[in-house]
């Protein structure tokens, strides 16, 4: 049961990565979209714990790496880290409909940026290191925060964990 939930959640997130790369790209206007997989990983890890959080983060990040010019392991490492950290918060935070989703996703987005900087410094050649704190990042962070309460509310309807599993 546990594995099937983890598998289905990971597949959903890989599907979202493909959608972000394909369908969103075809929408007019060259928009920057929220990082939906990050928001979902925060939600899922917080509900399911470190084990499921880091596994889903690892595979989702790997799917992103496959479709990106980023070196393999770059996004995977970031999302694994986020899955593990937010999984550690399982049962410690009672998530209200708006405030905590926004705070959690905002910190996760900042964590993503700082880990990208750290990974670049540790593992990447200077020419392969991405520019992190850009206008695009600021827009994405704002969008992530706006999207967080809606995504959390939507994910709750899927019942990927019970109250007992969350530690309440």
């Amino acid at each position, binding site marked *: 049961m546990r594995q099937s939930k983890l598998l289905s959640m990971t597949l959903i997130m890989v599907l979202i990565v493909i959608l972000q790369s394909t369908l969103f790209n075809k929408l007019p206007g*060259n928009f920057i979209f929220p990082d939906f997989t990050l928001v979902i990983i925060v939600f899922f890890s917080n509900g399911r714990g470190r084990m499921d959080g*880091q596994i889903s983060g690892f595979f989702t990040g790997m799917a992103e790496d496959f479709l990106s*010019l980023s070196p393999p392991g770059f996004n995977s490492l970031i999302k*694994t880290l986020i899955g593990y950290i937010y999984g550690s918060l399982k049962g410690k935070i009672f998530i209200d409909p708006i405030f905590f989703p926004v705070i959690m996703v905002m910190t996760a987005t900042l964590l993503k940026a700082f880990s990208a900087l750290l990974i670049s410094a540790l*593992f990447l050649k200077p020419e392969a290191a991405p*520019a992190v704190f850009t206008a695009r990042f600021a827009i994405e962070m704002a969008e992530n925060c706006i999207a967080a309460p809606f995504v959390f509310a939507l994910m709750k309807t899927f019942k990927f964990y019970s109250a007992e599993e969350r530690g309440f």
Partner: protein
Amino acid sequence: MKNNRGKSRIKKETLLFILLLLINSILMISDRRGKETPRLSEIGFSLISVFQQGFSYISDFINETGNSINELKKIKTEYRALLKKVSEYESLEKDYLDLKRENAEMRRQLSLSSTTRMEKIPAQVTGSDPGIFYNTIIIDKGSKHGIKKDMAVVAFYEGFQGLVGRVFETGAYSSKVIPLYDKKFSAAARLQNLRYEGIISGNGDSKSLCLMNYVNKNARDKIVYGDLIITSGMSSIYPSGIYIGKVRSVVAKEYESSLELEIEPVVDFSRLEYVFVLSKEMEKE
């Protein structure tokens, strides 16, 4: 008993976390060292791009079906305009054949025995980078179609053959292209009329202008707004004469020995649908 089980679970989770971090670190280190095997990225990209292409074709089909009624009206008007153009081109074709014959004769007299021509492989843009840290264009042709790393990618836009970027990585049926506006992109370029050379590089965002550096300061008073920039052919990747962009501003710093030009790409990346990959297989004429 319950406490022991909890500790063992935490231990398992931490061990797995360390293992996953190690896997990712090894992947990045091996990529940094440029190791070709095992190319996990290429295999993963080939697999996932199959699904990506499926989504792309479905969305295109839905879009095209929705737009087809409007398209029919447009086609009727365009048809009439095209008939007129065809008659104009008929006379142009005759001129072209005369010029071609004349050109061949002159080449023979000047002993320029051969010219090189690049084969164009048409491809459709199926996706872009799912994140914000990198810029990627994904096309639906890969190594099975003869595409190799570092081939130049162009698109036809408003009558120009404009530079899009170069192939960065190939999967079996799709490829990743590094676009002109990416910071990691660079190409040897020159001003089409003034012939001054420089290096063009991206600024990291499709909406921002590209930069052309190392342009001789003597060109400062001669460059005008809108001057065209083309590839110089100095590198082995990009053949000469491909349009890159138009000059939008000239930055001349007193303490620098060269000029910096801001360039607006001729290709509109927000509307990019079809591209051509220039195959390095050269044909002798």
